[in-house]
């Protein structure tokens, strides 16, 4: 019978991503309820030394697939290796990150194994032998609680920044095992020929702890400089509403909302954003929301923990100055 929870750890250029620790921590909590082990799957090149770190967060075992063709994520190589391991060892549950690679992989892996996948989940529980997953739909205008039928393993992806990372236990050390797999070059049909890092190497919106976002009220692209200054001070990433993106003031990769990124930072500061429903859907799971807007009737204030009715061109620079005193 299928047993155990697997998590697929995520690394970029040999460094484990935070989502890996979120996944291990959550898997540990679920596995303790089921009385089952947690296995982390770690794919990469010369990656074995990172295995111990996963153990501290709760992995009993780390299965390491080390191959230079696994250094950078590709759909074909990762699907091939993970599906081989899953078929051989039959885990009950596989959790991945709902990150760019995780979301690319989950549907392919699920189809190869002929099972279901619950994408971009924000809460998990166990009922009997089944994983129960809660996931936003309509970008968070509603939530669907789903489970699986005739699906072994049960695959789910976890939204980054949502699941709490446990305190690492330095005394734990996992069993580290070299995974047995084969990779045939003829199966690898896509090739990553270049990796372009975004200028400034800012934290991506979906992973950001803090976001400072601007909307139509910013009046133009140059004015975003005051948001950049605040963001630099508090280590935040700058986002934008759809109207600011559609006006060409910011790149589409900055857009927060239903046709942009759905974000869950600790702090979200909305500046000159009225709060169209499709924007609110994308940011309402932020832990603390601040709205700065001239219009006291702007819908954004219904979601805000702290609302400032005022001129953002005065309030934002003043806030930056005040925070300099604190930090």
């Amino acid at each position: 019978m299928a047993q155990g929870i697997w998590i697929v750890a995520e690394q970029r250029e040999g460094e484990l991503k935070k989502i890996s620790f979120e996944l291990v921590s959550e898997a540990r909590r679920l596995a303790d309820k089921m009385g089952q082990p947690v296995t982390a799957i770690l794919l990469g090149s010369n990656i074995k030394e990172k295995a111990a770190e996963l153990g501290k967060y709760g992995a009993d075992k780390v299965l390491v697939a080390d191959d230079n063709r696994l250094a950078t994520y590709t759909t074909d190589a990762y699907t091939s290796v993970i599906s081989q391991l899953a078929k051989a060892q039959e885990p009950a549950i596989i959790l991945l990150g709902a990150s760019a690679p995780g979301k690319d992989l989950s549907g392919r892996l699920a189809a190869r194994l002929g099972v279901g996948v619950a994408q971009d989940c924000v809460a998990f529980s166990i009922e009997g032998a089944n994983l129960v997953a809660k996931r936003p739909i309509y970008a968070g205008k509603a939530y669907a609680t789903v489970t699986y039928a005739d699906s072994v393993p049960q695959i789910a992806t976890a939204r980054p920044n949502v699941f709490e990372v446990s305190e690492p236990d330095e005394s734990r050390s996992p069993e580290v095992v070299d995974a047995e797999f084969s990779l045939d070059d003829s199966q690898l049909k896509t090739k990553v020929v270049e990796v372009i890092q975004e200028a400034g190497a800012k934290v991506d919106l979906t992973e950001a702890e803090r976001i400072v976002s601007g909307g139509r009220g910013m009046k133009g692209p140059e004015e975003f400089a005051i948001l950049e200054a605040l963001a630099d001070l508090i280590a935040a990433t700058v986002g934008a509403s759809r109207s600011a993106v559609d006006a060409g003031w910011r790149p589409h990769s900055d857009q927060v909302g239903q046709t942009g990124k759905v974000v869950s930072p600790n702090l979200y500061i909305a500046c000159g954003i009225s709060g169209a429903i499709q924007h609110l859907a994308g940011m309402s799971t932020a832990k603390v929301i601040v709205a700065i807007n001239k219009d006291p009737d702007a819908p954004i204030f219904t979601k805000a923990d702290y609302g400032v009715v005022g001129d953002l061109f005065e309030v934002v620079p003043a806030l930056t100055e005040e925070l300099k005193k604190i930090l």
Partner: protein
Amino acid sequence: MNILVCLKQVPDTESLIKIAPDGKAIVTDNIKWVMNPYDEYAVEEALRIKEKHGGEVTIIGVGPKRVTEAIRTALAMGADKGILVDDPALPGTDSLGTAKVLAAVIKDLEYDMVLCGKQGVDDDYAVVGSSLAELLGIPQVSVVVKLEVSEDGSMVKAHKEVEGGTFVIEAALPVLITAQKGLNEPRYASLPGIMKAKKKPLDVKTIADLGMDAGEVGESGAKIKIIQITPPEERAAGKIVEGETSEEQAAELARLLHEEAKAI
């Protein structure tokens, strides 16, 4: 070059979402149905490739009769023909089931590329594209913001958005691409386009026509079952930050964020 575009019809993003009394679906009365925004980028990209390399663009939709409107919109933009799979057994079909239906349609077609939106803005699964690529046995590049097809039409170079950057990925055709916002600026259908679209072929197929069994789709075939749909948790009412001047407001906000919310 023959290109297939898979599209979905979804509630407009400005829609308020209300949950049905059974708690398992949303209320669809008064919903304005539109082509899934990400699928518009897929249709536009297909048309641009066709304009450069020739060939035919075929639109494939799965769902009730109203999905015809979204397919006709794509035809009015310039696509050549449409296929709708409409069957009473379909409601409740999950992502893998939908991918199986699309794969069954596609197995009888000749194609060089399949384009999909990166996800439906209704269920937000982002699974059908990659599952379909797997069932077809072709490579995929998802969440693409830039796509170049080689002069001889044998290869693509696709820019895939990842956290904090871009992967540039090469693949030989046939390939499946999922479209992200930024890939292009979709055209509007012209009036002559709308007139022409009315005469373009639109085939309607049932599950049986595809050689599938009704048990493979709908709730009976679904690997993912909806237990319940719930509204988002209400946020507690916030407070308006007091202050006579912008400076006072800013000082009070800084204090609240630091001392009360402990967010800074």
